[in-house]
């Protein structure tokens, strides 16, 4: 975000003036293994949702493989409450390209794909213009090429194997792992899939060193990250902060709670994260801090709800979302998301029964880990946490 406030921040000139592409110059003097090692030591963890250690992911590319290796950028941002990658694509596209160049060297890739969600037309135009600038300047096309690919509207394509299916020209059905993409990914070749923001962290790590980056964060996660803060706060927006910031501090940075001014609940990491109550916000916003609090940092999309918000209605909105976006491949997900949407709808319409709450909890608790991808596990987090933490509010709406 070093460049964000400049109106021309998306241009190569502005990026270079701010020190851009110096890390790439340095990386070209480094052995690929040394780059991987540096990123491992930085404790950079994937910022798209899963939080997997980035350097470790890169090291899974088989050393003996002699064919092509692909770098795929996940710019299919879609997690409810998240908008940081849109800012990066529009305002700092060269940071992504520099991160891609360095990563491609580290994993010995000659071809990268950037999968941008279909709705992001302006970000796609901005990023495509930056790619052209990079070709014209000889940064691309000298051993590494970039293809910009537009999606067509499907949340599941943010799941990395669903994204690869989509990139291959199919419907975005996730694939069973193993084999992991690093072994057999896009078009059957070893592939690294990284989120936009994750790759944007790579140039500063190479330029300023792993120790510096690691020192910004916690013991198990280095760096700062971009928190998307929305909902009932006075100043919604993207906030960059060390991952050791607490949720309370983050809400304060976003101007504090709006509406009634009294906090009721917070979604800490995108729609799929379990909800936290007002007295659970003294947690650090790193991967492990929120995991220990029984939820997840996910894509770091923070949605704030004040006292006036109906939690059952909020759950209905999410239940409708999961029913709509389930790709339909696995039975537990396809069926449960559809039925739970109907049940939560019945409750918010005043026709539900208290037994329905137990049915939803029962179905949700038995469904974890039964599907090919993490989509349904992500839906279960809200189903269970909203009902268990705000049960009386649901019961008030029930007929008996």
């Amino acid at each position, binding site marked *: 975000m070093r460049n964000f406030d400049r109106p021309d921040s998306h241009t190569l000139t502005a990026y270079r003036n701010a020190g851009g592409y110096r890390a790439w110059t340095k990386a070209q003097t480094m052995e690929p293994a040394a780059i991987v090692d540096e990123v491992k030591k930085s404790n950079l963890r994937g910022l798209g949702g899963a939080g997997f250690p980035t350097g470790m992911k890169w090291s899974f590319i088989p050393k003996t493989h002699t064919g*092509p290796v692909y770098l795929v950028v996940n710019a299919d*941002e*879609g*997690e*409810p*409450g*998240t*908008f940081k*990658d*849109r800012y990066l694509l529009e305002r700092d596209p060269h940071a992504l390209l520099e991160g891609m160049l360095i990563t491609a060297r580290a994993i010995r890739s000659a*071809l990268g794909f950037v999968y941008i*969600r*279909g*709705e*992001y*037309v*302006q970000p796609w135009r901005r990023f495509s213009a930056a790619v052209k600038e990079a070709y014209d300047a000889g940064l691309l096309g000298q051993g590494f090429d970039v*293809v910009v*690919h*537009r*999606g*067509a*509207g*499907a*949340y599941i394509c943010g799941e990395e194997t669903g994204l690869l299916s*989509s*990139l*291959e*020209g*199919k*419907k*975005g059905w996730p694939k069973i792992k193993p084999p992991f993409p690093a072994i057999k990914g*896009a*078009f059957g*070749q070893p592939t690294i899939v990284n989120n936009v923001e994750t790759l944007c962290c790579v140039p500063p790590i190479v330029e300023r060193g792993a120790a510096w980056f690691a020192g910004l964060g916690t013991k198990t996660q280095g760096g700062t990250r971009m928190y*998307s*803060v*929305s*909902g*009932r706060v006075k100043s*919604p*927006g*993207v906030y960059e902060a060390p991952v050791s910031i607490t949720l309370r501090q983050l809400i304060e940075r976003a101007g504090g709670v709006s509406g009634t001014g009294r906090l009721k609940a917070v*979604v800490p990491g995108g*729609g799929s994260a379990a909800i936290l109550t007002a007295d659970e916000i003294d947690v650090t916003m790193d991967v492990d801090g929120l995991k220990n609090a029984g939820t997840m940092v996910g894509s770091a*999309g923070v*949605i704030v*709800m004040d006292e006036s*918000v109906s939690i059952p*209605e*909020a759950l209905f*909105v*999410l239940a409708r*979302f999961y029913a*709509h*976006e389930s*790709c339909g491949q696995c039975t537990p997900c396809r069926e449960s998301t559809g039925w739970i949407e109907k049940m939560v709808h019945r409750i918010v319409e005043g026709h539900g029964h208290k037994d329905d709450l137990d049915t939803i909890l029962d179905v949700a608790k038995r469904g974890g880990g039964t599907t090919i991808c993490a989509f349904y596990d992500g839906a279960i987090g809200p189903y269970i946490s909203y009902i268990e933490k705000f049960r009386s509010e649901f019961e008030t709406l029930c007929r008996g």
Partner: protein
Amino acid sequence: MTAPVSFSAEQLAEVRRLQALYPDKRGALLPVLHMAQDTFGYISLEAEAYVAGLFEVSPAHIHEVVTFYTLYFQQPKGRHVVAVCHNLSCHLAGAQDILRHLETRLGIRRGETSEDGRVTLQAVECLCACEAAPMAQVNDRYELNLTPEKCDRILEALR
């Protein structure tokens, strides 16, 4: 469907260029379907069969792809598409009021197209502009921080 479904020579060259970007030409299917929709207005069964020929795959494969993604229309759409986000952050900011306002103004319900063929109104999932909720995508553009008055101005400009 009376008009013949086919690309111009320039478009066919573009199809070949796109196909060559991918290790397997099928990778270009989504971009080519975007082209098809931009050219034909929507993706009819005839268009699916035509695209299937360009990729040497079964029309059934194209059909399952077209039906999987929300941005491909299988029916004629309005000249403009107004897609209002109704996910959580927009919900908290009054997305339902915005949708109801647009339904009243256009005389249609979400999912429908106005009788004059001007506007298709949709309720869609998170468009990831939650900092400016409620919001909508109007054709290619994101329209942010919507109010009923702003919606009226936007509709006014859609001819």
